[in-house]
């Protein structure tokens, strides 16, 4: 993180506000996307998150952070994608209770280093583990709208094909645009005839991805890397990048929490 220069104007909105749930979409058997309309919208940067606060009738509260899945270009609305942790507290509430019309207390946007703005250019190496795809989808969408020539390669590590979130978006992003490539590593279950990676992220895999990214854009500017997901995934990805000589000042990370 050494040379990342913080932006002092990036102060988060610190007051709690209510947001209306407009839409609930099922992404996979354990991921749902919630579209929230904010009472007091403020601009955000791709990669940032909101805090959500739930309050029980007796005043007991629980707070968790959820990354913004949508692009900053859609002002006033944010998408949050929540993966179900079955023995958890807040993610089961989202999955079992929340429906359109509900009010939720949120505050944000929050988060500094793990953001992308078009002036940072690229090429972008986006490394997602599980629900770590969420803020990277925001970055990919924003790239497509604001800076479509910036080359990007997404490497998405998921357990099996049924765990892949945003499949449609990723399929079309990868197919339609020559400056975007999507690679998948399915670590536990691969469909018959699978030709993608079938193992966890490692240095050789990242070397191949970087080589592909460099070939795609044909000049030698150093990629910016964003790694996001469960702590174990982010540790492995960042360590692997360092081990193949990637400058740590070009690596940004967001750790969601314990490894499953």
């Amino acid at each position, binding site marked *: 993180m050494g040379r990342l220069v913080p932006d*002092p104007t990036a102060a988060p909105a*610190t007051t709690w506000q209510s947001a209306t749930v407009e839409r609930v979409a099922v992404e996979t058997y354990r991921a749902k996307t919630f579209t929230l309309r904010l009472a007091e919208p403020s601009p955000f940067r791709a990669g940032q998150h909101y805090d959500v606060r*739930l309050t029980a009738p007796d005043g007991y509260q629980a707070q968790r952070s959820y990354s913004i899945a949508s692009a900053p270009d859609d002002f006033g609305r944010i998408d949050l994608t929540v993966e179900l942790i079955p023995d958890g507290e807040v993610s089961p509430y989202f999955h079992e209770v929340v429906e359109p019309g509900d009010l939720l207390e949120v505050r944000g946007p929050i988060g500094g280093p*793990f953001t992308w703005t078009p002036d940072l250019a690229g090429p972008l190496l986006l490394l997602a583990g599980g629900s770590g795809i969420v803020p990277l989808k925001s970055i990919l969408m924003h790239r497509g709208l604001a800076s479509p020539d910036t080359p990007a390669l997404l490497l998405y590590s998921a357990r099996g094909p049924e765990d892949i979130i945003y499949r449609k978006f990723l399929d079309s992003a990868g197919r339609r645009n020559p400056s975007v490539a999507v690679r998948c590593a399915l670590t536990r279950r691969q469909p018959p005839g699978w030709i993608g990676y079938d193992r966890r992220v490692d240095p050789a895999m990242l070397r191949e991805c970087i080589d592909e990214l460099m070939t795609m854009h044909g000049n030698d500017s150093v990629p910016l890397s964003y790694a996001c997901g469960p*702590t174990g995934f982010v540790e492995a990805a960042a360590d692997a990048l360092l081990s193949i000589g990637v400058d740590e000042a070009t*690596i940004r990370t967001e750790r969601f929490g314990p490894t499953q």
Partner: protein
Amino acid sequence: MVTRGFFGRRRETPPRPIPPGQYLERGFPVLTAGPTQRVPLDQWSFVLVGAEGEPLGEWNWEQFRSLPETEIHTDIHCVTKWSKLDTTWKGVTIDDLLTAAGVSDPSPYLMAFSYGGYTTNLPTWDVLEGRGMVAFEFDGQPIAAEHGGPARLVVPHLYFWKSAKWLRGIRFMPQDQPGFWEQYGYHMYGDPWKEQRYWGD
């Protein structure tokens, strides 16, 4: 605002109060802005720097480990909402480091700085009289790299981002200045009991 249909599942009553907005965590999550730093002990050193940039003291690993050791038992609180009870840290208090350096009157603020470029600011008072230490052991073991080893700052009464991992040194300052997360809108002081997470809290 009461949230429709929410009653709370993590109702485990903490054995003693934890700060508002926090929940009990038994594991030890990791929050870091970049890759984990791995600093070999033979390349490690710790420096104290005065307000004019003048060196006040420097210790290599061996010299550092010959300083007086202190053990503390404490609860820790991360701004990402988890609190962990009954942790044990062993290290060298800032008091003992100042004594070893012969400094009796440090400036009122400090910037802790780390291998990898991380920084965080604190009032000097908050690390004196046993309130802060440079720790090298967690629960009886050397601190793992992902948790800030070989040595990290531990200031348990403030949110844990103030307890800089991979600590490289401390620079004293006449005035308060924001460190890394503080420039991104995290609170300048960070008292978990007042829920000072972000600017304006």
